[in-house]
């Protein structure tokens, strides 16, 4: 029989140590006695609990009294922490009460801070995931990408490409500076096992790639050397996603066969979920299947065929500069051996992996991060001003509190607590806001910036926001707090309610507004530059029309269509049937779609011209069907386009672009001939088409030749099975997709359709990163402008309301309404002018860092640097006129009476 344990436990916590044992002992004895007398357990427990409650109250009272006594004696150091916590709680309670009394002020402050902190949190997460998080490879800082460069002035086109040819890969593998070079080529394939054929992105890789990246298969293994050799066993590696979606995550798929482009391949492994090739970071369709590249080291014929992406690892202790010096010596040796002309200044070099993947995105993201911090600073300035204005109206309250004995430290502490509470609430709301902003950014276009899809608002972001919130609260709170605490109690109380005029607090407010205007000028100038740059970029003529065209990729299987004639027949029939569909205006097909798929170059021989040593005639190679030029709206400069007569047995013809005509036949290209292989037939130029932007909207325009799809096999011996269908519709082209799919399915249900997109979507995707930068900077510029406007308006309203008495006096003494308005506006303009001046000078310095993200707009673009200050000045005038007019609509006598009360 024991008393209730919980009751004992509770009581033990409440009692003071010197009586605890005896009280508990007495009660235990009493409980036992009651039970022995026949009292039930429940009733005895109830009696015990009554004792507990009775004893609790006096012991709590006594504890509090004791603590106060000890604190008064000031001897107990262990209670300092506890006391400061109590003081903090007291401050928090006080601040919450005070803020609850001015809900509008609290709301405006929280919203302003939430916008600033929320945007900051979102962009911080972007910076962390994109720029700071290491790539998921072993020691990624030592990974490099091999690239080639040719100089301008050589007879071949100027180039700076990241594709390498097979012989070049073998040459540069000799480098002592590199611990291996691996190569891969990304190309779509058809998965033809199972019920439904699908087209997926695959990569043909050398066996070294995985070792160099330092990544192992999650299940099974990666490729072995003999599998990567010509004639080796046909094997494949699956991505985690493909394994899950198509093969149900079954381990048994390892060792079994899948069918790729109609041929069986044995699955040897499954890669980890987060594994990606470096190239995957720049596309929205990452690789799902890896196949051995199986290069033939004895075949050195394809030196001019640049199609491999090459990744390497710096040997330990070797710097990037040393590696590049080594590669340069190999390049020089190749020139000396006559593989490249000396004028071409051909050389290979390596760039760090992260630099290659992130490219301009790095500068853009840092720029955006800088901008979002300016927004936060402006928000801080705004809130600081609100706090200052509020502190002015609270002078009497503070004076009374000082009179009642509150020290200066206490006042500062309490005012700072208020600002930190506001900023923490603002931070909390901002976190939610930032989460939304991030979701929206990713939803709009996850492929616009490399790794954007990986960005999450995680624990780091929460930690960041907490730090920023508290720092923000201290930054914007400290000036108003110090200023407000420094007041003359006597004067304040004597002034009996009239808000004190004078210049002392205005100086702070005006400085803050000027700073705000300056920051806004910097941001708006930056935003305007990117908007103008984007305008220039999107006004570039791509060389084709974009309206009402849809494209889709098709791939024809060798199993169903073994020879070139059958492939040609399929596409001819398909195009005939598509053109017959209602709503279709034009239809054609090409090997690679401009701005969507990269195009490469191919060496040519020009009839009647010998190449000098090191000279290389070439052009980007495109295969097109009749109707392609018309469907894309590519203008004809001379001659004709491809027609149905251009069959395999007819005259072999070609169409070239303007750039190629100018480069090789400046005095007329029609009727001239060239060939694309040693023993291949001459191709007669029958037409010259307008230039088309292909590998990027703002890049160079290269020489380019087009060959009819049906005739390509005559030159090369094989045909192009992969083609992109281009359909120009009378109205919305996406409505045709279903019927076109139907036509393809009717002809052969095994042919998968992929990459369905309108040409407008292709155009938009080609400037996605620039749009990302531009949209964000534009948004931040707009927020900055709005906050600065509110800032100017706020401080002018406040000044006017304070000077009501003085302005009334001036009017009473005969000043006209206009002259009073003018005086106030002039004052507002002075503040704005200082801000604008400082802002313009700062912007001149800051925009230097924007060079890499701007296209065809100077970093000191005069229109921007004149236009933005004018805009800010107009805004400042407008923000001052409104309060100034309010001052003069009041009757002078009312102003004198109210202002002097």
């Amino acid at each position, binding site marked *: 029989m024991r008393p209730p344990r919980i009751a004992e436990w509770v009581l033990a916590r409440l009692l003071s140590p010197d009586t605890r044992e005896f009280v*508990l002992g*007495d009660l*235990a004895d009493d409980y036992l006695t009651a039970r022995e007398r026949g009292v039930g357990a429940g009733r005895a427990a109830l009696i015990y609990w009554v004792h507990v409650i009775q004893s609790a109250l006096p012991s709590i009272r006594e504890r509090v009294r004791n603590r106060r006594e000890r604190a008064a004696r000031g001897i107990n150091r262990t209670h300092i922490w506890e006391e400061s916590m109590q003081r903090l709680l007291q401050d928090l309670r006080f601040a919450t009460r005070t803020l609850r009394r001015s809900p509008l002020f609290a709301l405006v402050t929280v919203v302003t801070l939430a916008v600033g902190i929320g945007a900051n949190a979102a962009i911080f997460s972007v910076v962390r995931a994109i720029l700071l998080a290491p790539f998921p490879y072993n020691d990624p800082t030592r990974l490099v990408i091999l690239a080639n460069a040719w100089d301008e002035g050589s007879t071949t086109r100027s180039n700076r490409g990241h594709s390498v040819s097979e012989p070049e890969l073998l040459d540069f593998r000799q480098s002592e500076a590199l611990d291996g070079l691996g190569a891969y080529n990304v190309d779509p394939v058809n998965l033809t096992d199972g019920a439904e054929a699908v087209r997926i992105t695959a990569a043909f890789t050398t066996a070294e790639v995985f070792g160099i990246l330092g990544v192992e298969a999650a299940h099974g293994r990666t490729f072995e050397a003999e599998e990567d050799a010509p004639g080796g066993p046909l094997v494949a590696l699956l991505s985690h996603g493909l394994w899950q979606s198509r093969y149900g995550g079954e381990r048994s798929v390892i060792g079994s066969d899948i069918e790729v482009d109609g041929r069986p391949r044995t699955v040897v492994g499954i890669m980890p979920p987060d594994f990606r090739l470096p190239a995957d970071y720049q596309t929205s369709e990452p690789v799902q299947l890896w196949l051995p590249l199986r290069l033939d080291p004895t075949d050195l014929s394809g030196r001019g065929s640049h199609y491999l992406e090459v990744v390497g690892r710096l040997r330990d202790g070797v710097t990037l500069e040393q590696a590049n010096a080594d590669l340069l010596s190999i390049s020089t040796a190749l020139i000396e051996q006559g593989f490249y002309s000396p004028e071409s200044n051909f050389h290979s070099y390596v760039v760090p992996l992260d630099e290659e993947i992130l490219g301009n995105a790095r500068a853009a993201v840092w720029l955006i991060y800088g901008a979002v911090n300016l927004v936060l600073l402006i928000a801080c300035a705004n809130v600081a001003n609100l706090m200052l204005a509020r502190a002015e109206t609270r002078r009497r309250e503070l004076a009374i509190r000082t009179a009642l004995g509150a020290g200066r430290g206490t006042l500062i502490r309490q005012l700072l607590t208020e600002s930190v509470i506001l900023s923490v609430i603002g931070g909390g709301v901002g976190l939610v806001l930032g989460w939304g902003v991030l979701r929206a950014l990713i939803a709009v276009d996850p492929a616009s910036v490399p790794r954007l899809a990986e960005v999450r608002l995680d624990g780091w972001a929460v930690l960041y926001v907490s730090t920023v919130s508290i720092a923000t609260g201290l930054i914007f709170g400290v000036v108003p707090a110090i200023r407000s605490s420094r007041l003359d109690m006597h004067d304040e109380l004597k002034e009996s309610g009239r808000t004190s005029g004078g210049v002392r607090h205005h100086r702070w407010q005006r400085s803050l507004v000027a700073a705000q205007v300056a920051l806004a000028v910097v941001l708006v100038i930056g935003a305007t530059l990117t908007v103008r740059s984007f305008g220039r970029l999107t006004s570039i003529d791509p060389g084709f029309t974009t309206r009402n065209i849809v494209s889709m990729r098709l791939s024809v299987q060798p199993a169903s269509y073994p020879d070139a004639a059958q492939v040609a027949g399929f596409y001819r029939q398909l195009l005939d049937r598509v053109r017959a569909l209602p709503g279709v205006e034009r239809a054609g097909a090409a090997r690679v779609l401009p701005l969507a798929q990269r195009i490469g170059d191919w060496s040519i021989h020009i009839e009647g011209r010998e190449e000098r040593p090191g000279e290389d005639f070439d052009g980007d190679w495109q295969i097109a069907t009749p109707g392609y030029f018309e469907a894309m709206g590519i203008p004809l400069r001379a001659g004709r386009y491809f027609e149905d007569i251009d069959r395999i047995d007819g005259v072999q013809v070609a169409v070239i672009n303007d750039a190629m005509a100018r480069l090789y036949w400046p005095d007329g290209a029609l009727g001239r001939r060239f060939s694309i292989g040693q023993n291949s037939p001459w191709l007669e130029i029958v037409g010259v088409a307008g230039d088309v932007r292909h590998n990027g909207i703002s890049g160079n325009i290269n020489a380019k030749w087009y060959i009819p799809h049906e005739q390509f096999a005559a030159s090369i011996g094989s045909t192009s099975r992969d083609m992109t269908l281009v359909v120009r519709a009378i109205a919305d082209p996406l409505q045709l997709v279903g019927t076109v799919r139907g036509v393809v399915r009717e002809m052969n249900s095994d042919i998968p359709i992929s990459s369905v997109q309108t040409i407008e979507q292709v155009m938009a995707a080609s400037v996605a990163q620039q749009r990302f930068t531009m949209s964000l900077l534009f948004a931040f510029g707009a927020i900055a402008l709005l906050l600065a406007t509110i800032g100017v308006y706020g401080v002018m309203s406040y000044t006017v309301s304070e000077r009501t008495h003085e302005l009334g006096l001036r009017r009473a003494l005969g000043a006209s309404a206009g002259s009073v308005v003018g005086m106030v506006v002039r004052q507002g303009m002075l503040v704005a002018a200082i801000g604008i001046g400082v802002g313009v000078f700062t912007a001149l310095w800051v925009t230097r860092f924007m060079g890499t993200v701007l296209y065809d707009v100077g970093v000191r673009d005069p229109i921007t640097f004149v236009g933005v200050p004018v805009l800010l000045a107009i805004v400042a005038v407008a923000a001052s006129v409104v309060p100034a007019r309010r001052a003069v609509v009041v009757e002078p006598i009312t102003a004198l009476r109210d202002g002097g009360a």
Partner: protein
Amino acid sequence: MPLTDFEQLVLLAVARLGPGAYGMVVRDEIRARTGRSASLAAVYSVLGKLERRGLVASWVSEPTSRRGGRATKHFTLGREGALALRAAQSVMHRMWDGVELSSYLEGR
């Protein structure tokens, strides 16, 4: 320092119970005689104060299992305590001396 009302009650209970009184019996004695229900913690708190003033003396007995392994603190009235009670009693007597309440109570 004169005794408070409750201190007087506690001291009187200790005096009535004789040597060996402890918290619970003091509390019960007060309740039985006055109907006033004090909390045990308050009784001990007052006993502690009285002890510090030298009005009562105390000793601690061995812990027992009946008390959950806890000791008992016993109190006894000291000479100073007896003097204080006497002083309080004489104050009361002096105040009562000559007070006639019947005229107030009659007719009202």
